């Protein structure tokens, strides 16, 4: 039955997933060609020195693309569920509602992770090709909060979408903006190295709020 639910979610978001993967690919390619051109014009020592002295994050283009990736996937996956209260159809399936909700969200998170893996592997190859190993390690630590932030954005978007009460919806939007902005606030290399586990825990905690919104959806607006 999970396979069948995956089939449903895939039918709904396959084109947007392919589109988002393509955008991420283009951004990574853009980073690669930018770096290639820079190394053609300047010597490696100058480039590395400049990057270190001014904390130039040469892959920062991907930062807000990751945020948008989570946001857009959430919109395309859950807008059809909320539109005409189609989520009732899913909740009427002979499974526990929380289990169905968990499985739907899992599909979205797995698709996001697949895009992130592509980005991370591509950026790692770029880093190791052009720059010393320290840049590769620092890239992983610098980008990790952005990936986790994208998942957190996706989770909050679902929470906000399915919450039927407008007051709670508005409060959720404000809280979501505050929390998500934490993931993207750091400038420079590895600023959040010591916060990554807190980000993971925070995202895990935020995930549980989805079930509260799903409960409210089922309970109806009173």
């Amino acid at each position, binding site marked *: 039955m999970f396979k069948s639910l995956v089939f*449903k979610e895939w*039918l*709904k978001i396959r084109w947007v997933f392919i589109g988002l993967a393509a955008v991420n690919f283009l951004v990574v390619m853009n980073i690669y060609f930018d770096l290639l051109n820079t190394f053609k014009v300047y010597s490696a020592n100058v480039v590395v020195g400049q990057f270190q002295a001014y904390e130039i994050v040469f892959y920062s283009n991907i930062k807000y693309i990751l945020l948008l990736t989570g946001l857009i996937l959430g919109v395309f996956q859950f807008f*059809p569920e909320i539109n*005409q209260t189609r989520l*009732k159809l899913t*909740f*009427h399936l002979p499974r526990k509602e929380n289990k169905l909700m968990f499985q739907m969200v899992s599909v979205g998170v797995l698709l996001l992770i697949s895009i992130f893996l592509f980005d991370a592997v591509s950026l790692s190859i770029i880093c190791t090709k052009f720059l010393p190993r320290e840049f590769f390690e620092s890239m992983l630590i610098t980008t990790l909060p952005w990936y986790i932030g994208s998942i957190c954005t996706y989770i909050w978007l679902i929470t906000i979408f399915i919450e039927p009460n407008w007051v709670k919806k508005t409060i959720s939007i404000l809280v979501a903006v505050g929390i998500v902005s934490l993931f993207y606030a750091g400038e420079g290399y590895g600023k959040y190295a010591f916060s990554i586990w807190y980000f993971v825990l925070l995202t895990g905690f935020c995930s549980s709020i989805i079930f509260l919104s799903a409960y409210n959806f*089922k309970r109806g607006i*009173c």
Partner: protein
Amino acid sequence: MGNVVEIKNLTHYYGKKLVFENLSFNIREGSIFGLLGKNGTGKTTTINILNGFLRPKSGKCLMFGEDSYNLSPATKARVGFLIEGHIQYSYMNIRQIEKFYSAFYPRWKKEPYYELMSKLAVTEDQKLSKMSCGQRSQVALGLILAQDPDLLILDDYSMGLDAGYRRLFIDYLTEYAKAENKTIFITSHIIQDLENFLDECVILDYRSVLCTMPIKDFLTNFKQFKFESSIPDLKLEKDAVIKNSEVIKNKAAIYTFAGKEEVERHLASKGINFTNLHQEAMSLEDAFIGITGKY
């Protein structure tokens, strides 16, 4: 035969607005039960409560003996649910949606679904979003029939359908559901379609229940009497005998569960003079409008 649905003293509010109070009725196994009422009387609210999509302020709602707010997966599998407006996953095509649902229901029978689809001018890879409202209604019905549920809950099946699709819908329900002793709980705003279909009905008014009874009893016992009176500006108040009335100039119609003689005595006791008092035959729709009023 036992009751498939038991609703006891159900009361619900939206904010401070009372939707209904102490709504009670049972749906017997194998019966076709209609929930009738004008717009805004709480039909969809009742159906949402019944399917566990709304928690009532007070009262009990049981489906197959389970609290409708906490239905087990096994009980949900026994209930086919048509959402108002024939809502379905419109991004799927005819084949995909059948494949999707079939994995969830152990008693799935695809034959009635594809039989119904063969009557439509559509291909199997046509998306639901590219279909007409009538065609989508048949997809939704076909899926419910394929699910082979014991109870079918159909919320305003007639919404947006022309006469042909409405007839097709009822014909298929009769063929597959009524013939197999399924229980059907149905609402519709087109009452005349249900006249020869329903076994029992509950008629809702704003905040209250007007009547709950077998449809044959309702059509036999609920009557319309017309008469003429010389009283200028005749006004007929609702009471134990007069359930509703209409007055146009000196011509009046009253709707009642009483017989002709009782009506005559009642009018006389109220000092209303009348001539030509006679009973007029009513269809279900006439009777529905008679008891609920036109406004």
